């Protein structure tokens, strides 16, 4: 009987754990370690953030689901990995610290045969002075939609802004990224368009200035170096697509910006050309940069081997090609395929937790040396696909031994469908529906655009909103392991 320990229960971790359990049955053990008692369908948080949904609509308690599935659930935070065991025992283990289940603060060692690191990001608010509270949490100057609780708070603040606007006070809203190295522009993109939509519905759009600020080199980069997609029978850059949306909605943009300081009602930023500026706001939603969850690693002798297993950002090394090389030499083949740790073959990383070999967008620095470029998105569909592939590999390893064939899910050979909401409403809603293949551009295979334009496609409309709404219910259904959940693709 083997034990699989999954750290994290986000899209990647939850997918890995549930599929592994389903395939392994009761012959083997699956343990999930996560500090949160609730599962959160993060893509819908933006709707919580504009008051279109409540927190309860986007979360559910994990414990009953895992209990029913026969997964051993520990509400705890992973502290360290000991892949070589310790003196006197070769069995690898992780140490965890409980955050619930009436064992708060207690630590425990959980041994494993296989480990999946799917810890997701640490929301690194403190990377920008004034964005965080100095203790790792969000500060009081801005709001966020990264967690359901953050989104609830954001919606309350937004409501006040709309009320003031209704009274005739001109309000300034700033949405975007709070640091030069952020990813997840998509969430901010959706949020700004949803704010616009809600402001129009509330009849206060004329009294609200909405502005975008981001670290992308151009609007529509999305951390993926932009993309060329089929729109209306033409192949166009996502830049045109995005700029058109912003222009249509009268949302001006500041682009190539590293937000370096936030005060009450004011954001300071540096641009790619080295110039600096400031932007006042009454309401700001700025995405924080992501870091790894901050786990440590120790060898058998108790020596710290964190830097061997994790990159400086805290993301885990897997089978990517991490040799530093200039942008021109980046290849699709640099990207990991099996997500197996390069040193410890029974450790895998999935979702945001794995270290990408390099960014996807073209790297850029301001003349002052500040890197200002989006880091690659690893959320949503890619996370789920990677999680499932990793589960598959581990199940094969357990069943067939170490000669088993590993399953591959390279982001350079993976397509993704992405629906970016631009407003909620059964008939008034809109969303940009995009498909993209591959996620990481492959310029050898697809010269010029790096992607296959037969499969990279975009369109905006009400249908996109319906899809997004259906996906919301479908994925929560799937995450709850309700009947037929395995039929719902990642």
């Amino acid at each position, binding site marked *: 009987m083997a034990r699989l320990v999954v750290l994290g229960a986000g899209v990647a971790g939850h997918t890995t754990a549930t599929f592994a359990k389903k395939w392994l049955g009761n012959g083997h053990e699956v343990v999930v370690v996560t500090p949160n008692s609730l599962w959160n369908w993060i893509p819908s948080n933006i709707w919580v953030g504009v008051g279109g949904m409540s927190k309860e609509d986007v979360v559910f308690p994990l414990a009953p689901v895992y209990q029913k599935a026969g997964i051993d659930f520990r509400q705890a935070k992973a502290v360290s990995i000991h892949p070589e065991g310790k003196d006197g025992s070769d069995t690898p283990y992780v140490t965890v610290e409980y955050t619930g289940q009436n064992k708060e603060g207690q630590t425990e060692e959980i041994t494993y045969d296989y480990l999946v690191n799917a810890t997701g990001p640490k929301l690194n608010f403190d990377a920008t002075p004034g964005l965080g509270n100095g203790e790792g949490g969000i500060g009081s100057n801005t709001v966020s939609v990264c967690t359901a609780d953050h989104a609830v708070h954001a919606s309350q603040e937004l409501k006040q802004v709309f009320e003031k606007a209704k009274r005739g006070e001109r309000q300034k809203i700033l949405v975007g990224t709070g640091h030069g190295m952020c990813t997840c522009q998509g969430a901010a993109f959706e949020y700004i368009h949803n704010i616009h939509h809600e402001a129009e519905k509330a009849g206060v759009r004329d009294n609200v200035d909405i502005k975008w600020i981001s670290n992308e080199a151009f609007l529509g980069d999305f951390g993926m170096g932009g993309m060329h997609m089929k729109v209306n*029978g*033409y*192949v*166009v850059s996502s*830049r*045109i697509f995005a700029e058109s949306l912003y222009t249509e909605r009268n949302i001006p943009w500041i682009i190539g910006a590293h937000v370096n300081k936030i005060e009450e009602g004011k954001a300071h930023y540096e641009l790619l050309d080295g110039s600096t500026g400031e932007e006042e706001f009454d309401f700001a939603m700025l995405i924080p940069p992501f870091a790894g969850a901050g786990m440590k690693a120790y060898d058998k002798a108790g020596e710290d081997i964190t830097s061997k297993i994790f990159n400086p950002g805290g993301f885990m090394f897997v089978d990517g090609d991490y040799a530093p090389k200039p942008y021109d030499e980046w290849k699709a083949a640099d990207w990991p395929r099996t997500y197996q740790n390069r040193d410890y073959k029974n450790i895998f990383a999935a979702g945001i937790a794995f270290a990408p070999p390099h960014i996807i967008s073209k790297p850029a620095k301001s003349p002052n040396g500040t890197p200002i470029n989006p880091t690659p998105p690893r959320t949503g569909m890619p996370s789920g696909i990677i999680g499932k592939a990793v589960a598959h590999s581990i199940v094969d390893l357990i069943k067939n031994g170490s000669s088993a064939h590993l399953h591959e899910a390279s982001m350079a050979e993976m397509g993704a469908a992405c629906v970016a909401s631009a407003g909620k409403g059964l008939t008034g809603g809109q969303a940009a529906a995009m498909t993209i293949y591959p996620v990481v551009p492959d310029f050898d295979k*697809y*010269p010029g*655009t790096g992607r296959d334009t037969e499969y990279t496609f975009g369109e905006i409309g009400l249908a996109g909103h319906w899809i997004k709404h259906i996906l919301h219910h479908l994925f929560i259904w799937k995450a709850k392991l309700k009947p037929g959940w395995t039929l719902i693709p990642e």
Partner: protein
Amino acid sequence: MIKEERNFADPQFETAMIPGRFQRTMRHCIVWQLIRMVFFSVRSIGIIMVNLKNEKELPST
């Protein structure tokens, strides 16, 4: 993909709309283009009519 998409490798060509296979075919589809010609002619007549309508008579002094 069509050959012209390679041009996107050049940053100057970034913000272009390059027609895909369908648009390309339609651009040279005789029947469709006949329809477009009629369509464009109707639009042109619209412009000519506006020009005629806008031609006013002013007193010479």
